[in-house]
């Protein structure tokens, strides 16, 4: 067993704050309340900070370290198809696709939500419908994300949820790593 410090405090706090913020706004807070608006702005601010961190942060937080390419995605699928275990220290290519999907979707949810508060778009139907469709899309994505994390943890023998809490990945003996 070898231990690697992967996720810095900012990445972990960002992840779990986003979880709490999105869950609160999507499931618990009244859609027409001021609190819903403020939470929305806070989430957009949080993602903006993550985007900056992706450019200036430490190695595993940088987008350049986990930018998915067709070849790397096919590589991960080949590992799944052949039952090989090649571990990625940072985000996996498929995981990275989900990250960019969620960041983009939640930003668009924030944008359409903000548009509903402006005079120009207040009460405009397509804005509200887009806002709600994007939330449904984000919810589907989150369910897939959680299922994929469980599946990858079982496949590779690395407890991924714990790593996102403690920041440390514990890799099994003899594991091949592909950073």
């Amino acid at each position: 067993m070898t231990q690697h410090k992967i996720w810095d405090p900012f990445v972990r706090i960002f992840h779990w704050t986003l979880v709490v913020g999105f869950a609160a706004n999507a499931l618990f807070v009244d859609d027409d309340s001021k609190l819903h608006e403020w939470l929305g702005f806070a989430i957009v601010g949080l993602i903006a900070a993550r985007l900056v961190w992706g450019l200036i942060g430490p190695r595993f937080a940088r987008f350049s370290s986990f930018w998915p390419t067709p070849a790397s995605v096919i590589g991960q699928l080949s590992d799944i198809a052949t039952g090989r275990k090649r571990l990625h220290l940072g985000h996996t290519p498929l995981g990275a696709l989900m990250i960019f999907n969620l960041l983009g979707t939640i930003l668009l949810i924030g944008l359409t939500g903000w548009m509903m508060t402006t005079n120009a778009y207040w009460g405009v139907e397509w804005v509200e419908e887009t806002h709600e469709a994007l939330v449904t899309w984000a919810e589907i994505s989150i369910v897939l994300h959680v299922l994929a994390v469980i599946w990858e943890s079982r496949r590779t023998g690395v407890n991924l949820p714990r790593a996102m809490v403690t920041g440390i990945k514990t890799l099994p003996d003899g594991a091949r790593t592909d950073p």
Partner: protein
Amino acid sequence: MRLQSSAQPVSLLVLIVAQSLCAAFFLWDVAADGLSLGLLAFATSHFVIELLAVLALIAGVVFETRFLMDLLRRKAHLEEQLGLAAGAFHDIVEARFDGWSLTPSERDVAHFTLKGFGIAEIAELRGSAEGTVKAHLNAIYRKAGVTGRGAFVGLFIEDLMSTPLRPPEVAA
């Protein structure tokens, strides 16, 4: 060495993702109709046709996913050795493995064994423990009905000697 560009699996993957989204959308639609109509829904031809179309779409996605996984396995094994003969031999090997119902991991271990890799080397290549590879090998020998590596490799030598290796001529 790369056998070909990865364009084929990528476009197949994009197709699978797109069709999965369509299937999810129409399944949602059919489920909503079914819930509002209740059991009566099955008496309306519109609903039944929609349901069958969705099921066919889902079956297509499942089939494509299995095809993609087979394709990736094949590429993973052929990339290390180019050539038409390797492709023809690979098909014979795959047909045998199909007959024994090897799991994806067992297939991979069996391929490495045929190439002459030892247990420690296979464990290193696959990123797994030696004990796991031994367990895979035992399962492979049991399914193939042989007692060990020598007899296992012998099965394929037999095939090689009785099967012409050259596939139909292909313009290079």
